[in-house]
């Protein structure tokens, strides 16, 4: 008995018209370019940082960022601390609020209002970060200064507050997706047993959608870490390790944006800023890959 295994590509590409093969080759080429691009970005960041990682002046644990002193000091920790302060605070606000809003919009609200609120969330996602930064500077910062009796309203907290809202659309819409991907049979099953809608949500929906919601939160956090313009304008730009979130800070992203214009290609400062780029790239790569794991886990559990 002869045993042939039909593999999709073997049979379908065999003796196909040439045009068909060329089309597929072009499409595949475009897709593989994406892998090339991401590799290319990492390669160039590392290359342009020119081995600054191995020098004494650029240290991950360094507490001072003094690019123009002699010799310069490129301590990443002070900026990382700024990024962490802003990101953690923003996440603490955005993640719970975003998840709650997603549950309300996706599960409890009548269809009519749902569409309207979704449009608002989309508009929020579309507001350019420079506009958020501008409003943070002239409306939020003076208010924060007044309310907490500070020297300046440009603080980690102000930035975190604005960033929390910028992360909200990601968290809300991805959480909604995760909730919607729970099969209707599970919902109906719970409701048919006499559970209220709220009981169904807390006991069936949330536990089932948990991996997807976690992924939503992580991607939201990823967005906050990478946010640049708003932080640059609101966080106060002070490269000192903060003792509280009510002090000005400086983040990795803001440092790159603020200082790149002053550098000359190839000098230590230029290399150090690309070094920060590598650090940022790796952080977001880790977060995104982890989030992807959660999303995949969700799918495998379903099937």
């Amino acid at each position, binding site marked *: 008995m002869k045993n*042939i295994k*039909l593999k999709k590509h073997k049979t*379908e590409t065999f*003796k196909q018209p040439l045009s068909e093969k060329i089309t597929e080759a072009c499409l595949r080429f475009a897709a593989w370019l994406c892998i090339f691009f991401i590799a290319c970005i990492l390669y160039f960041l590392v290359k342009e940082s020119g081995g600054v990682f191995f020098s004494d002046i650029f240290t991950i644990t360094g507490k001072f960022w003094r690019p123009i002193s002699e010799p310069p000091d490129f301590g990443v920790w002070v900026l990382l601390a700024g990024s962490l302060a802003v990101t953690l605070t923003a996440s603490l606000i955005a993640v719970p609020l975003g998840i709650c809003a997603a549950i309300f919009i996706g599960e409890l609200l009548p269809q009519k209002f749902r569409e309207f609120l979704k449009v608002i969330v989309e508009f929020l996602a579309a507001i350019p970060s420079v506009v958020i930064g501008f409003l943070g500077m002239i409306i939020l910062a003076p208010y924060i200064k007044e309310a907490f009796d500070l020297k300046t309203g440009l603080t980690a907290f102000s930035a975190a507050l604005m960033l929390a809202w910028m992360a909200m659309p990601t968290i809300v819409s991805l959480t909604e997706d995760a909730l919607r991907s729970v099969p209707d049979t599970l919902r109906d099953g719970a409701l048919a047993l006499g559970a209220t809608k709220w009981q169904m949500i807390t006991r069936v929906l949330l536990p089932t959608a948990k991996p997807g919601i976690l992924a939503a939160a992580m991607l939201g956090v990823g967005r906050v870490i990478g946010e640049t313009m708003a932080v640059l304008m609101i966080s106060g730009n002070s490269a000192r390790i903060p003792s509280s979130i009510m002090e000005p800070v400086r983040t990795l992203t803001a440092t790159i944006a603020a200082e790149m214009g002053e550098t000359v290609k190839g000098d230590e400062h230029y290399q150090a800023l690309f070094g920060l780029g590598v650090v940022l790239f790796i952080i977001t790569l880790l977060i995104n890959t982890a989030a992807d794991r959660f999303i995949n886990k969700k799918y495998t559990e379903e099937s």
Partner: protein
Amino acid sequence: MVKEIIIKSLSVSYGNKQAIRNLSLSVEKNEILGIIGPTTSGKTTLLTVLNRMIDTIPSVAISGNVSMGDIDVLTTPNIHSLRRSVGMIFALPVALPMTIRENVEYGPKMAGEAKGELETRVKESLVQAGLWDEVHDRLDTPALKLSGGQQQRLCIARALALKPKVLLLDEPCSGLDPISTSRIEDTLSQLKNDMTIILVTNNPHQAARVAHRTAFMLKGELIELADTDTLFTNPADNRTKEYIEGKFG
């Protein structure tokens, strides 16, 4: 009788699930072969092997031999021309989201046939499928506006436009009302003069009405194949008898 299709010891499995076990049968030219059996008996799988739509399913393993004239179905390099000569109608009507005319023209157009011929081909096919009278004045309206029964006849017309040698129908009336069903059965009786038809159905009465010979399949195996009259009045196998009498299925 001339044999149109000869299947020898065909086995198909999806992953580790065996869908067809060592099945052999031959189909005669210009006959209507009915295939009955409960769900998961492998009927649909058998059809998808015959025009190689099975290729669209990943991780399938096939063994055996299927020949159609001088074509070796399982190894033919040109599956597109195989599919053109072996038309397939699905359980639910799938009118493509375009106009009625474009639906019928679709196959010949993709095969690269000359534009001049299409006009007459559209009419011929719709007439053959018994749909022409109902739609001739609105050929350029969206096909999805037709009723379910009309859509199913449109699908038949669409397959006929390619002048196939074999027509495979996979429970073509499962979603239709009795009137639409009888119209399609009439159409099939007309068509058998021009082609060979394999009709899979889970409604034994339909096979009894239109098929010359009927096969009974169960769990991927061919239990019995006989003239329709014989199979229904005097089945050789007890399982066939029980299925026809409605004891399971």
